[in-house]
């Protein structure tokens, strides 16, 4: 077994990056200001929240599941954490007089709520064996309603300490982009370097075989949805920090679909067991380039969505053919 560089294999595995490069070149030629550093930073800041959701949901898809809850749970966590960092003298605060809690504490609370939500529906999926689509659809409705019950109006006027991760800059680099890449690194590490990651691949490939091989399928499935939900919590807190406000009705609304689209375009197979974290990163960037570039090219919103729809469907068709050949 010698390890040689297989050009064909490399190209087929990274074809998604080629698509990205071609897209970037087209956009850059059509609109030269697309190629500025400033615009690159704008693009990345704009996609960071949905990208982090994609890093979560790719684990669910890899395990042959799906997570439709993440947009709503991000919204719920955004509202709860935002309500804890409003100034005490702000008359429209959710808890007038509570005052601003320290941001690290609030972030921990947010992560804990995220993990808790994920553990609940993860356990329901793992032990009742109901389809993840249904379990997470139910959880989505509950989380969205929970956010609206928690507060009927947007939660704003948030402490700058809490908004640091979402809106501050270190030098020219927005912190939100750094958080995005940290989450990317953690996802890549979990997926490729840990037993958990290998187990998820195995479960997605064939859960019976995984069970026979001694993998605790239930425990790993719960962990998958805990991770999804923790990513959603991070995304929710960034969302609130970035906009300076969390809106119970709109924050994170339908974001799960963009995240699933990014993971799918990035080559995560809905038949389970196939996922490359670098591909998902490319998928996020492709959708980002479309969102950002088409706005700059003055293409109207409906057309942008048509292009996105075509790219999502097209990429899955290509992917299925590729995977069929491999098998």
């Amino acid at each position, binding site marked *: 077994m010698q390890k040689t560089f297989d050009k064909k294999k490399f190209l087929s595995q990274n074809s998604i990056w080629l698509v990205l490069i071609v897209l970037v070149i087209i956009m850059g030629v059509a*609109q030269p*200001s697309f190629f500025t550093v*400033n*615009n690159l930073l*704008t*693009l990345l*800041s*704009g996609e960071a*929240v949905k990208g982090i959701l994609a890093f979560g949901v790719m684990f669910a898809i890899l395990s042959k599941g799906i997570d439709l809850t993440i947009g709503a749970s991000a919204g719920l966590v955004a509202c709860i954490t935002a309500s804890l960092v409003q100034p005490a003298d702000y*008359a*429209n605060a959710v808890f007038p007089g509570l005052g601003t809690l320290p941001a690290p504490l609030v972030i921990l609370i947010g992560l804990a709520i995220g993990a808790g939500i994920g553990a609940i529906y993860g*356990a*329901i999926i793992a*032990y*009742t*064996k109901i389809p993840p689509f249904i379990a997470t659809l139910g959880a989505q409705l509950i989380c969205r309603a929970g956010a*609206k019950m928690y507060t*009927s*109006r*947007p939660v*704003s*006027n948030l402490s700058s300490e809490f908004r640091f991760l979402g*809106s501050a800059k270190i030098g020219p680099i*927005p912190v939100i982009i750094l958080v995005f890449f940290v989450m990317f690194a953690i996802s890549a590490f979990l997926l490729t370097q840990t037993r958990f990651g290998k187990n998820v691949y195995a479960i997605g490939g064939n859960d019976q075989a995984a069970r026979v091989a001694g993998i605790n399928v*239930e425990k790993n499935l719960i962990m998958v949805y805990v991770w999804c939900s923790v990513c959603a919590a991070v995304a929710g807190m960034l*969302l609130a920090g*970035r*906009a*300076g*406000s969390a*809106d119970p*009705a*709109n*924050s994170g*609304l339908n974001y799960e679909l963009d995240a699933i689209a990014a993971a799918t375009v990035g080559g995560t197979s809905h038949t389970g067991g196939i996922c490359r974290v670098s591909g998902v990163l490319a998928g996020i960037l492709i959708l980002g380039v479309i*969102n*950002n570039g088409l*706005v*700059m090219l*003055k*293409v*109207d*919103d*409906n057309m942008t969505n048509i292009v996105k729809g075509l790219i999502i469907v097209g990429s899955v068709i290509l992917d299925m053919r590729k995977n069929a050949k491999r098998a």
Partner: protein
Amino acid sequence: MKRRIFAGFIASAMMVSMLAGCGSNDGGEQPQGGESGAEGGSGHKVTLIMSQRDEWLSEMEAAAQAAAKDIGIDLTTQDANSDTSKMIQYIESSVTAGEDAIIVNMVDPETAAQCVEAAGEVPVVFVNRFPGDPSVLNEKAVYVGSDEMTSGAFQGEYLAKYFKDQGKTEISYLMLNGILGQTSTTNRTASVLKALEDNGIKATEAAAPLAANYDRSEALDMISPLLTTTEYDCIISNNDAMALGAVEAMMQQGLDPKSVPIVGIDATADGRQAIKDGTLAMTVFQNAEGQGRASLQAAANLIDGKPIADGTGYEVDDENEFIIWVPFEPVTIDNVADYD
């Protein structure tokens, strides 16, 4: 086996908690209605059907609930979640439940006729969203709200004056639309452009129409790439939330939001604060409390057979006696303090 038991346990725990949730809800609402009836009020039963519950509409709903308590009406509210068929269902079930009047905040104004039909003999008050076909209005179906075509007009008049003072008659603008295809979006956008034109300003759009779904962070993401790459003289938004997203986007790009006039609609708490800070140039106050209270009073008047505007503090339309107008008001730094 063990797993089965555990699964069963989870399922039953979920069910119990759900039932408990419903139970406590009913328990919370029922006595309230009974109480207000017992307080010597009219004891009429009215249902309010909301198109959805965003910040502004929630404020209107709260005002209607407060008014119900004052007048002594047993008010139930339902949320149609932007779904027209759900809205019609709620109307039908309110009729079956024997409600004395129904207040409808329509999802789609073109469905006014279906609403009236579904309500049958029960009087209907349309609130906030004006029927697409005003001929449905009569002594059993009335409208309470503001004229959406005037909200954008206030924005347009403000901007026209602003640019005329600078000696400019040709401007370009960035437009943040709410939800494309929705009546309020269409009317707000159309009316601001019409007002600019009527006041002698030639306005051209600097980019494609942006549709940010009335949401702050979506507006932020959408407008960010345009701020340093296009030429624009002002930013027009269909609501305050998106206008504030534009303000946030400018600040994050190191631009001064005061350098161009940004105009919104709604005069929300955050919007008014931004007016005080000077980051938002103007907004338009749509009276949530006025619409909520007046719609309930109109419903009570319909049931009691009184003139519909009795006790609302507002006037009926000059030409159509079945319309109560609750006026829009422009808000700038000069009068923002009046709205706190």
